[in-house]
């Protein structure tokens, strides 16, 4: 495996570069790789792919759609019509608004996988690593690009789901308003969770290096693993289940 070296080398490397660079008579440029520039590059890479826009759009759309639908179709007393993995028996306005989180988490996780594994499956990684020979700045930058993007947009999506669903719960016992205790915190928490799932997708993509394989692993871990956890003895289950 190629080694990665740390920042101090870069500094010293730069000075030797400047003093021993008479090879090329042409330009006295300040071309140099910096962490910020790698981040800028990853940012540009993310937005220059149609798949990023589509996947991100799908994530937010699912979040808003399912949240709003769940709120409008809510009827007290009836068993929750939401998907498995949603809220347990007693729903609140917030839990209904966040019905779509499971679906959004898949979309956002896939987004992270595509960002990382997509480079391996297309061969882009060769160009990337030829430009940035140290591997870690690339990895950090990918995580630093996708995490906040997913966090911000899905937080907005969760907020939108809540606000859109609110009229549907008007007059119900469980209705809440944005100003109520913990509502904003819960909605933002969903954004944080989805941001982290996106970063997790990047991790899987880099480890598995294949889009299909990493997506399969993602689905397995997000959807199947929690169900399997319930097979554990109660004492264990209680301590690992939130």
């Amino acid at each position, binding site marked *: 495996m190629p080694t990665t070296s740390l920042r101090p080398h870069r500094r010293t490397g730069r000075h030797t570069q400047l003093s021993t660079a008479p090879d090329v008579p042409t330009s006295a440029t300040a*071309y140099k790789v910096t962490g910020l*520039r790698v981040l800028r590059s990853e940012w540009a890479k993310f937005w220059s792919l149609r798949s990023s826009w589509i996947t991100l759009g799908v994530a937010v759309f699912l979040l808003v759609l399912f949240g709003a639908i769940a709120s409008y179709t809510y009827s007290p007393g009836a068993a929750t019509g939401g998907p498995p993995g949603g809220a347990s028996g007693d729903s609140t306005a917030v839990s209904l608004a966040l019905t779509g989180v499971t679906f959004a988490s898949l979309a956002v996780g896939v987004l992270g996988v595509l960002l990382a594994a997509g480079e391996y499956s*297309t061969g882009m*990684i060769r160009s990337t690593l030829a430009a940035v*020979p140290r591997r870690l700045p690339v990895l950090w930058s990918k995580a630093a690009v996708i995490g906040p993007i997913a966090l911000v947009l899905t937080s907005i999506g969760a907020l939108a789901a809540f606000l859109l669903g609110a009229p549907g719960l008007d007059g119900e016992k469980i209705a809440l308003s944005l100003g109520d205790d913990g509502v904003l915190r819960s909605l933002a928490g969903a954004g944080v969770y989805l941001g982290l799932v996106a970063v997790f997708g990047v991790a899987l993509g880099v480890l598995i290096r294949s889009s299909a394989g990493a997506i399969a692993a993602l689905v397995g871990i997000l959807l199947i693993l929690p169900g399997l956890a319930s097979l554990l003895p109660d004492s264990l289950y209680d301590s690992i289940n939130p």
Partner: protein
Amino acid sequence: MIEVRELTKRYSDKTVVDNLSFSVRPGEVTGFLGPNGAGKSTTMRMIVGLDSPTKGSVTVGGRPYAMQSAPLHEIGTLLEAKSVHPGRSAFNHLMALAYTHGIPRSRVAEVIELAGLTSVAGKRVGAFSLGMGQRLGIAAALLGDPAIVMLDEPVNGLDPEGVLWVRNLLRSLADEGRAGMLSSHLMSETALIADHLVIIGRGRLLADTTVDDFTREAIGGGVKVATAETAKLRSLLSGPDVTITSSSTEELLVLGRDAREIGAIAARHGVALYELTPQSASLEAAFMELTRDAVEYQSAPADTEREAA
């Protein structure tokens, strides 16, 4: 300048690159030749740190690739396989690479124009033909205004105009004092572009020479002469720089005199010649001869190893 020192790459039991040493020097174009599977691409991948050597070292501009602070300014690379996300446009691909080094947008536009991609810069790379993909790869290699330009099979898929463009490009880069390196499995093509030749077979260095020397050796194959009076002709032709060998009683192979000279001497002394043939091997034939020997040389020890095991 690239320094390859005792480079070895082994994948489990297969040695792809075997104790390879050579240099790529500024001011000249180095042709890196070998038959398919000789280890050219692996060597180039190790030069830019995409593979790590099992043994030995590579430095680019005096430093290992991972220690470069501006790798694209030191060495621009085109690797054999497409190294581009097909969903991104040519412009956005180059721009993404440019951002890592703080290369300005104007330089991106410059290399796009240089590579003749202006009309398709906004198109998704997935729709590119092989030749356009090569042009994009070469544009990416030139992006950082590098001291070394290393191209793996650059003329693959290029039209004749493109081939000429690559040839002139490498020439002008070398004339500017930069180092050019291109790999190929075609001797005749490489001889037109390169000054310096590094030939490998089965991962081993076979020849580290100049195109001029290689050509001279390949073409200087001697003259075959057939006559009844071999002994007489032999003494007539002998001289300080002349070697004469004989494979049969009526045939001589003369090195050091050309056919015209031999014919004139024979006529002057009344020696009847039945045949007078310059033995010119083509560059391609000489290259194949060289690499075929290496393959034979390499496979023999492998066999004995297997027998021993």
